[in-house]
Each structure stands twice: as C-alpha cells, then as structure tokens.
C-alpha cells in the first residue's frame, strides 16, 4: 500500500491502481463516458480530468489513465479541473447534441443543455465496444478507423469485421448511447447489419445464443456444441 493525497485527504491506495479507482472508492464524483472497470482505460472523453502534482507542478491528467504513486497529490474539484471538464463536455455536446449520455454528462459538468427534439444515438467514439470485443470477448471484430497522415479519413469511425464477429451482443450491451443496436426476431439476431442464426434451447425451446457464439465457445473449451445447446435457465 502507498499513501496518496486526494483533495487534501491522505489515503492508502493499492499500488498499480488508478486515480479514478481511488477517487470513486472514496465516493468522489468524477464523470466518465469511456471508462469501464473491466476494460483497459482509453482516455477518450477527457471528462475524468483531475489535477496531479508532478515534479512540483500541478498539471491536468485523465484520472482513468493515471496510476497512483507514493506521495501523489490529486485535486478532483479545483477551478482548473471544473473548467477543463466543462470544456470537454461542451465540445462533446456541440458534436452530439441529441445523444442522451452526452447531454447527461454535459449537465453534470455545468454546460447549459437545450431541450432535445429527438433522441440521437450517435457513436461518440468512446471505444467501449472495441475494447470489450478485444479484451472480454477476445475476437477483435471491431476496430478504429482513425484519421492520420495521408490516410484521407474524413470522419473517424468504428469498423466492423463480419467474419470475426460471433454475434454475442457485448458491444451493444456496453454501448453508452444506443448506437450499437441489436435486434432479435424469429430465431435471428441482427447486429452491425450481420444476421446471426440463433440456437434454440433443447429443453425450453427458447432462442438463447447465436450459433456462431456457441461454436466459438466450443472451439475454445473443447466442449462439443451439442453439449452447449441448453440455455442458462434450464441447465
């Protein structure tokens, strides 16, 4: 354990943990849009900014990506922090004015939010789906198309690789805006415009998982697909 100072309070922190994890353990309110405790931090939304004292100087840092060190001093609610979060939230709201998750973050950061006419479901490039697919599901069916030198990309976006996708739906589950939609109908599931055949439970007959997902589980565990054909409720 090491000792850090958050907003003037000296607290014990586990080595290797982040400022955000420690602040939240202390019930300090820090807004985030791209953070998930089970995924590697990504630092996309810049809403979790805090001030950290490094080399004797206070500087702004994304708390989700900042690992604590002995004696580290952190401010989570200074004027600089609030202004920086307000700026980041204002830009996100400027770009995605109808997306509820963004509107909510903007309100929390003190950005005036107008009444929305329709509910938007924009992709805000938070990368939660990409990281879930890679780090949790392990198939990497989603990846970023970023702008860069000579790349001629007008707008960055998420690319879907249909051959790698097993239709598990984790990306739709983790998406904070509803951009990644998933529809199920008549034994079929549609996600990222790919149609998956659903497997029916051999006990209750309910459609419970895409066949491709069961095949993937079978390939990883060595358990034959036939043994996976019972849904969780009937097992």
């Amino acid at each position, binding site marked *: 354990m090491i000792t850090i100072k958050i907003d003037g309070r000296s607290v014990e922190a586990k080595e290797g943990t982040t400022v955000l994890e420690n602040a939240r353990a202390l019930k300090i309110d820090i807004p985030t849009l791209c953070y998930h405790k089970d995924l590697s931090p*990504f*630092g*996309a*939304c*810049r809403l979790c*900014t805090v001030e*950290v004292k*490094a080399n004797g100087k206070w*500087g*702004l*840092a*994304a708390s989700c*990506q*900042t*690992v604590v060190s002995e004696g580290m001093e952190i401010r989570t609610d200074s004027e600089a922090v609030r*202004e*920086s979060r307000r*700026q*980041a939230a204002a*830009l*996100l709201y*400027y*770009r995605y004015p109808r997306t509820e998750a963004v509107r909510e973050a903007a309100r929390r950061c003190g950005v005036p939010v107008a009444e929305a006419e329709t509910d938007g479901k924009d992709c*805000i*490039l938070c*990368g939660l789906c990409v990281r879930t697919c*890679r780090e949790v599901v392990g198939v*990497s069916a989603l*990846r*970023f*198309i*970023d*702008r*860069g*030198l*000579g*790349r*001629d990309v007008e*707008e*960055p976006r998420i690319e879907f690789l249909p051959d790698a996708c097993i239709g598990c739906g984790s990306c739709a589950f983790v998406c904070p805006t509803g951009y990644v939609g998933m529809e199920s109908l008549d034994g079929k599931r549609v996600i990222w415009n790919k149609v998956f055949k659903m497997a029916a439970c051999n006990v209750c007959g309910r459609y419970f998982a895409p066949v491709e997902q069961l095949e993937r589980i079978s390939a990883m565990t060595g358990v034959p697909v036939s043994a996976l054909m019972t849904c969780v409720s009937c097992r």
Partner: protein
Amino acid sequence: MNRVAFSSWNGKIVDNRKGGGAKAKEVKPLNLDGIAYRALMGWNGVILADPKADVPALAVAYLKEARKLSCGECAVCMIGIDRVLAILEGPEGGKITPADLDEIEAIAKNVALTAKCNFGRGAAMTPVADAVRHFRKEFLAAGKRAPAGGKTYGSAVTAPCMEACPAHLDVPGYIELIKNNRFRDSLDLIRRGCILPGVIGRACTHPCEAACVRNDIDAPVAIRLLKRAAADRDLAEGAGALPGPKEEKKERIAVIGAGPAGLSAAYNLRRLGYEVTVFEALPKAGGMAAVGIPDYRLPKDILNHEIDLIKRTGVNIKLNTPVDKLDWSAFAEAGFAAVFLAVGAHVGTKIGCKGEDVEDGGVVQGAEFLRHVNLGRKIEPKKKVVIIGGGNVALDCARSCLRLGFEEVEIVYRRSRAEMPGSREEIEEALHEGVKITYLAAPVGIVRKGGKVTAVECVKMKLGEPDESGRRRPIPIEGSEFTVKTDMVIAATGQKPDLSLLSGKDKGSVATPWGTIKADAVSCSTQVPRIFAGGDCVSGPATLIEALEMGNRAARSIDAYLRGTTFPKDLSFEGIDLKEQRDKGFVQKTPAQTPPMLPVADRLKDFAEVEGGFNADEAVKEAGRCLRCYRLMVWE
C-alpha cells in the same frame, strides 16, 4: 527577409509589426529548407516574415491540415478543431465577435492542456491560440469565412522519430495502425519506404528510438520491434503479395548488386512499371543483410521471404553474375535505359600493422569472415581469436566465433566503450555471451612462430582531442607495448567498395579518391548520364536503412530522368528543434514491453535467433505508448 515581422515561436514573442525602427528586434524567420514564406504557422507558433500576410486565412488553412492528422480518439482535439473551424468559417458568414475569439482561446488552451497525445497538446491548437491572441484586430475585421482568396498554402508534417529515420518512415502512423489492431495496414505503410520490414525490424540501428520523446519520460517506444511485429504477423498469416506495377513501361533498367539499396531500387522501379534485372555477383541475394549479418540476429528465411516477394512482382535477379566491367555502351546495346550501381562495400580495409599481409590464413578480414560464415563455408574453430575493431562487424565476428566453437574471443578496440560505434545492444549481448573487450589498445604487429600466428603485439592508447568524426582521437602511449596471445586475427576496422568494375575514362569521373563512387547524395546521379549509384558503395559502410532509402530515391530519380520530370526532393527540417513543445502535459510513466531473449546458455550451440518478437497483444500494448508527436507546418 532578414528579420521577422512577428514571431511567437516556442512562446517567445517578437513583435516588429509597427516597424519598430531602431527598436526592432533582429530575429530571423525560422529557416524551413530555404522556403521564402510570407507567414508560417507551425506546431510551435506563428511566424510572419511579411507584416501584411493574412493570418486569419492562414489559421483556417492550418486547421484544415490539422484536422487531417487529429486521429479522433480524444474528444477535445477532434471536436475542438471542428468547433474552431465552424467559428472562423461559419456557414452563414457574418462577423467574428470578441466572444467568438474568447471561445477559441479557451478551447485552444484546454486542448493543449488535456489532449491525449502530443499532436493535440502541441500542433493542433498552439499556433491558433497565438494567432487569436496577437492578431485579434485582424480576426475581427476578417469576418467569418475568412477570405482564402484562392491562395495555395504549403504544408509539411514530420515528427522527431520520422526525422531521425533515414527513410523518414511515418513512425507514429504505422504504430497507430498497430495500436488499432491493423497490422496489415501498418505493414503496407512501412513498405512505402522500407521494402525489407522483417529485416529492418531485426537489424536496424533504430535512430528513431534515440529521437523518441519518451526518452525524457521513461524509455523510448520499441519502434524497431513494432515494425518487426507487423512483418512477422503478416508472415504468420500467410503473407500477402506486394503491390505490383499499375502500368507497364517499355524501358528496362539494370541494377548491379542485390543488397538493400539494389533491392529497394529494383522493387520501386518495378512498381513504377519498369522491367528490372538485378545482377548479383554472389550466390545469394541480400548483400550485407545476407552475407554480413549473422543468422542469430537475422534468420535468413526472413530475408529470403522478403526477397521472394520482390521477385514475385517481376524483378529478375541473376545470381552468380558479377559485372566485371561497367561499360555503358554494353548496357545500352543490351537494351537498358539506365543502370543503378549498388555494389556495396565488401572489401575489408587494412589494420595498418606489421605482418598483416602474410597470406597464411592467420589474419582474415571481418567482412570476408562473415561472408564465409553466412555462405556456409566450413570454418575450423581455433582456441583463441583476436578481433580488431569496435563496430558491428567486429561484434558480429566475435559472437559468430563463439558459436563456431572458438574457446576464447577477444575484441581489441583503440578507444573506450563510449566511442565504440557498435550498437549498445550488440555490445551488451556480446559481453553476456562471454566476449572479452580490451579497450584503448591498438595492434602494432602480428607475431608468428613456425609460420603460424601466435600473438598480436599491441600498444596502449589514450584519448586526445575530438577528431573530424567528433570522437576523441586515440594516441599511442609510448613504451606501453604488450602482447595478446592468439591463434588467429580478424581485422574488422572498416570496409570499402570493390571498384574493379570501373575502368577506363569512367573511373576518374565516377570514383572518389577515397575509393567510393561519386554520386549525388540526394538524386543518386553520377557524372555519367544514365548511370546512378547508391548504398554503401557511395556512402561507405553505413546502415541497412540508409541503403534502402538511397534505393527508394534512386528509383524516383531514375524515373524522373527517364520521364523528363523534376526529381521530387524531400523537404528538410534541418536546424528546427522538433522536440520543442510548450505544453507537454502529464504523461503516465509506462514501462516498455521487452521481447523474450534466448537464454545465454542456449545461444552458443548454433546460430538460432537470439531476440524474440512481440506477440499481437504485446505489440498493441507497446504501440499504445506512442505519444504521436506529429509536427505540422503550414505556410503562405
């Protein structure tokens, strides 16, 4: 222009706009390859050579270029640029208000303080903030949709690593593609300037890593190993073909030498549509990559695979085909439109001591020794070998000798470890493996008994003033002679090209007095029309990547010559400090990924590769350490 009208470069404000008369500060505009710009915006500030230059219009042009580089991963930089452009351009036209300018300043400040990467912290907004602060009146007068007036702007992008790389590879670009799990795209990008990525990913001296901004934070990004990861993964997945020519051209080109320079020129010429024949004297293609670098550093199946890909685009490589005499008329008669000479530097230079010329096999040249090892010739290990020299050839010889079964291997180098030109990793690995290095000693004579080498007589050295290479000159200490017992001596003190193919009148105009080929360092042209030259035979022994880059340029230059167009030269950033950046932000220290290494105990029984590569997860993780220090400049 002798002095700037305005400069905010690196945060230092020089303002001579009101004339200033005697008070004007004599600050010269930043020299960007001699370009006579009126005004320039770069990642580190605004410079006006002409006080009448239109700064609001330049700011819009700058932001449009910045937008192309802003990756989109963090919200503030990507959206911030769009927001500021919307304010300055405004679809409905109209006035720019003081409140608009305050908003731009606030956005710019926050982007610089909180963006995720060094592009955002530096290039994205820094000069825009400077412009808005110091040219408020001009912005207010300009109104929205700042008048571009059909003006064209120059622009350039580089980064500290890109500038350090002889081939100016887009290092942040190919690293970012790896980070985004786009290994194949990354490899395609690397190949635009480096056609042997698996080779370079193993054996490059990686000056990019020495320039990496992370050196000042924790450790440089493992750029070389990331390149290797892109190449290795492609090979493991079945290896895609190289892009071939879009259209065939009728001219045929001869390339002499299938080393890195020759292969690189050959492929790039083929890609441009020429029919290319490569003449190689040795039974193997690859030049020094094939016969200079031992297998434990560069397994030959990697090199052969990459050569094979080049051959499959239609490049014809004729092995065992030395060109004895460079005679332009003979090439012209055979139907060649141009020749690229890239014969390398394979002849060892003399140590300059008594008894080294006796041809009894007791003294051998380092490059020749490595060639024999690499071509699989049988070498009888002796008990002890002394290697003279301190470069990578000396280290390669020493580590090879250990693997061949020599019991004792000693390097004798005339300066100290600090001046040793061999790469740091190679020196460390050689010491781990048991090579002994004696510093500050130079041979004065080879001692023989009964017709056999028995020792080297050496003299101790001390270091004097720096010489023209910048390293301190070694000076013999009188009376300090000592002998080192040995059964064999390897001279690894340098190589030069074999220029015996030059004869007659061409020799004087093509060769330099110091035994290399005279060619333009940029265009590779020689004084003989249609003959171009590059690689080690022009530069003297240099690195693989330098040779590859000369091949790249030679291809463009030959194409320009044959098409009658101008050779497109790269912009030089010489004299500009690319590491300068005002807001460096807080960067989390993150240790670099380290590759698995073969245990020392397992290394010496054969020539198995010592260094392992990153797997996909390690590569993606390491790529995430890149700070993306793109430096953008836009000028009018």
